[in-house]
C-alpha cells in the first residue's frame, strides 16, 4: 500500500486533487441552486471538468487549488442545473427553460435576423437545436445545451447561440438568393474600398512618374502599417480593429475590451504614438526612407483621404440617381 502511494506520480496526484475539488464544487453547486431538479452529483462532474479544462487549466495547467475552487464557485448554479436537467430530458426543467427564456430567444432572433419571418425561423431552429436533432450514442437527443459551461449566464449563452445561427442562416440565404443588384453593389463597394483606381486629383500628382512614385510610397507606408499592427499586443490590435474596422464608438469598443471609454481613448492615443514610431522605424530601416520623407508621407495622408472621399461621394450620387430613375 505504501509503495502504491509512493509510486503515484505528481500528475496523478494533481488529477486526484482536481477530482476532489470538482466533486466538492459539484456538491456546493447543487446546494447553491434554487432548483436543482434532483440532479445527481455525477451528472455535474463532467460539465464542471470540461469548463475547468476549457477556461482555466488549458491556459494555466498549474493553477493553484484555490484558483480552481474559486473558478467552480463562480459557476452559475441555477443556470447550469437547469441546462443539465433539460439535457437529461427533465420535463419540468424543459418547461421552465421555455417559459423563462422564450422572450430572450425571440428578441435575440429579431435583433440578429433581418426580418420578422427570418426571426421566427431562427427562433424555431433554436428550440429544435436546444432539444437536440441528432441522437447520441446512448439514444438521447444531442442537445446543444450540452455545450453550456455555466461560466456565463444562460440568457447570454442563448443570445450567442441565436446570433451565430442567424449569421449562418443569413449567409445561406444570401448565397441562394443573391440578386444581380447585390452583386453590382458589392462590386461598386469593392472598387470604392480598394481605392486603387482613383482618378488623379488636380494638384495631387502632376505627372504619371510622380503619381507612380507616390503610389509606391503609399504601398510601402501601408505595408509598414500592417506590419506594425501585427506586432502590437492582441488587446491593442483588437481595439484598433473594433474602432477602425468595425466602426464601433470608443464606448462600445471599450465595453468589448472590458474597459471604460476614457481608458479606451487613452489607450488609442498611446497606440497612435506607438504605431507612428513603429511605422517610421520600419520605413527607415527596411525601405531606406529618411526621417523627413516619413514625415512628409504622413502629412500627405490627409490629402489622400480627402481625395478618396470625393470620388466615393460622386459614386454614391450616381447610384442614387439611378435608383431614383428606376
Amino acid at each position, binding site marked *: 500500500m505504501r509503495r502504491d502511494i509512493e509510486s503515484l506520480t505528481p500528475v496523478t496526484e494533481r488529477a486526484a486533487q482536481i477530482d476532489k475539488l470538482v466533486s466538492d464544487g459539484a456538491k456546493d453547486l447543487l446546494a447553491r441552486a434554487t432548483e436543482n431538479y434532483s440532479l445527481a452529483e455525477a451528472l455535474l462532474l463532467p460539465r464542471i471538468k470540461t469548463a475547468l479544462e*476549457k*477556461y*482555466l487549466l488549458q*491556459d494555466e495547467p498549474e493553477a493553484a487549488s484555490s484558483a480552481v475552487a474559486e473558478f467552480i464557485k*463562480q459557476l452559475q448554479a441555477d443556470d447550469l442545473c437547469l441546462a443539465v436537467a433539460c439535457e437529461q430530458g427533465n420535463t419540468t426543467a424543459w418547461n421552465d427553460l421555455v417559459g423563462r427564456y422564450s422572450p430572450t430567444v425571440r428578441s435575440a432572433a429579431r*435583433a*440578429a435576423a433581418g426580418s420578422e419571418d427570418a426571426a421566427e425561423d431562427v427562433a424555431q431552429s433554436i428550440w429544435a437545436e436546444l432539444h437536440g436533432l441528432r441522437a447520441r450514442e446512448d439514444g438521447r437527443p444531442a442537445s446543444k445545451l450540452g*455545450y453550456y*459551461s455555466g*461560466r*456565463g*449566464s444562460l440568457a*447570454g*449563452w442563448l*443570445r*450567442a*447561440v441565436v*446570433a*451565430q445561427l442567424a*449569421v*449562418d442562416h443569413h449567409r445561406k440565404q444570401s448565397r441562394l438568393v443573391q440578386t444581380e443588384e447585390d452583386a453590382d453593389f458589392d462590386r461598386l*463597394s469593392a472598387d470604392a*474600398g*480598394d*481605392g486603387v483606381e482613383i482618378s488623379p486629383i488636380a494638384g495631387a500628382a502632376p505627372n504619371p512618374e510622380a503619381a507612380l512614385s507616390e503610389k509606391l510610397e503609399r504601398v510601402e*507606408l*501601408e505595408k509598414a*502599417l500592417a506590419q506594425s499592427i501585427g506586432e502590437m499586443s*492582441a*488587446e491593442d*490590435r*483588437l481595439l*484598433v*480593429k473594433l474602432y*477602425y*474596422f*468595425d466602426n*464601433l464608438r470608443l464606448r*462600445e469598443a*471599450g*465595453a*468589448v*475590451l*472590458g*474597459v*471604460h471609454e*476614457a*481608458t479606451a481613448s*487613452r489607450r488609442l*492615443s*498611446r497606440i*497612435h504614438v506607438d504605431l*507612428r514610431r513603429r*511605422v517610421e522605424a520600419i520605413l527607415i530601416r527596411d525601405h531606406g526612407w529618411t526621417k523627413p520623407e516619413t514625415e512628409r508621407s*504622413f*502629412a500627405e*495622408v*490627409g490629402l*489622400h*483621404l480627402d481625395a478618396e472621399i470625393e470620388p466615393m461621394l460622386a459614386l454614391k450620387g450616381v447610384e442614387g440617381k439611378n435608383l431614383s430613375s428606376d
Partner: protein
Amino acid sequence: MKQSEDNQIDGLLRGWAKKARSSEAATESFSDTGHLDADELNSYAEGVLPAAARARLTSHLADCSDCRGLAAQLTLAAGRQISPGPVESMPESTWPSAMARWLSPAVLRYAMPAMAVIVLAIGFYAWRVSRREAGFEMSKAGPAPAANPQIDQNGATAPPESENGALKDGALKTQEEVASNKKSTAPVKAEATNRVEEKAPARPEAAKAARGYAPEPTPVDKEREVAKSDDSLKPAQPAPPASKAAATADQPEAGRDADRRVADRKVSEVRQKAPADQQPAPGKAAESVTVQSQEETVQNRGQAQNQNQNQKDNNAPTGGPSARQTQSQRAGVRGETNTRLGVDGAARNDESDRTNETRTVAGRKFRREKNIWIDIAYRSSQATTDMTRGSDQFRALVADEPGIQTIANQLSGEVIVVWKGHAYHIR
C-alpha cells in the same frame, strides 16, 4: 504628441482599414472549428473569463472579424457596466519632454500668475509677522519694565509678556489640578504635586506653581508675600511662580471647557464665602489663590470686563493677607502687567483693576489706564491726532484703515492707537 500627428496616423489607419475590411472574407460557418463557440463568446462578452483565457480569446477576436462582430453585439446586449479604471500610463516620457511639457506656454500661462499670488501672500504674511515682532520688541525696549524677563524668587527666568498664550495654558493647568483636588488635604496636594513633577521633571518648581498656589504657606512665607505685595507698586517686579509655570505647563484643548465650568463653580463658592472669611486660615488662603487664578483664565477668554465687574463687587470688602496674596497671584498668572497690585484692601479698587486690564484687538495690545485704552506701542512723547467717533475725520481715516474701525468698535471709550507710525486719540 501633436494633434496633427495624431490625425495623420488616424487617417492612415482609416484608409488602411477600409481596404483591409473589403479584403477580409467571412466565409466559414460558425459551426466550423476555427471560430469561438457560443459559450466562449458569451463568457467573453460578460467578462467572466479568467485572465489567461480572456487573453487567448482576445487574440482570436483581434484577427477574426466574424467572432469580433458577434462579441461586440453580445457585449452591447449584455449591457455590462464598466467603471473607470486606474489611469493608464502614457508612453514613456523622457526628462526633456517632461520639462518641455511643464514649461509649455499653456501651462505657464496659468502657473505664473498662480505663483505670483502665492509669493505675494507669503511675503505679506512674513511682513505682518515681522511687524508684530517689531511691535513686541518696541514694547520690551520701552520704559515699562513689564516686558523684561524677570527673575523670580527661585532664580528662574520668568516668561516675557509675549508668552500670553502659554500663560493661559498654565492657568488652565491650574484649573485642572483644582478640579481634581477640590477638597483635598495637604497630603493629597503633595501627591498632585508629584504628578505634575512627573510631567515636567526638568522644572519641579514650575510644576508646583502650575497648581496655582504655593506650597503650604508657612508664617514666614506669608510675611514674605505681604512684603512682596507692599513692593508691588515698584517697577521691575519679579514674576510669581505661576507665570513661570504657565510657560512650561501644557493643557490639552479637550478638557478646557470642563475645567472652565469647574472653575466657575469654585469661583462662585468662594465669592459667597468671601465676606464671611475676612481673615481666612493659611490653607484657605491658598485655595483662594487658586480660585483667583482660575478666574483669570476665564477673563483671558474674552470675559475680562464682566469678570472684573463681578470681582469688583465681590472682592471689595475683603482686605486681609489672603486677599493680597490672591491679587498678587493673579498678577503673576496674567503675566501681562508688571505692577503688583494691592498693598492693602483699600488700594485694591476699581482703578487698579482697570489699570491692569489689557486687551488684544486686531493684532495690537492695549492696556487700560484711567479709562483710556492705550496702544502699548504708544509713547507718551508721541504727538496724537484727536478725533471723535462718527466725525468726518474719523470716517475718512477708517475708510483708508479699516483696522482702526475694528479697534474703535471693540474698545469702548477713549482709545489711543498707533497706526503706521501715527498716534490717533479716538474719543
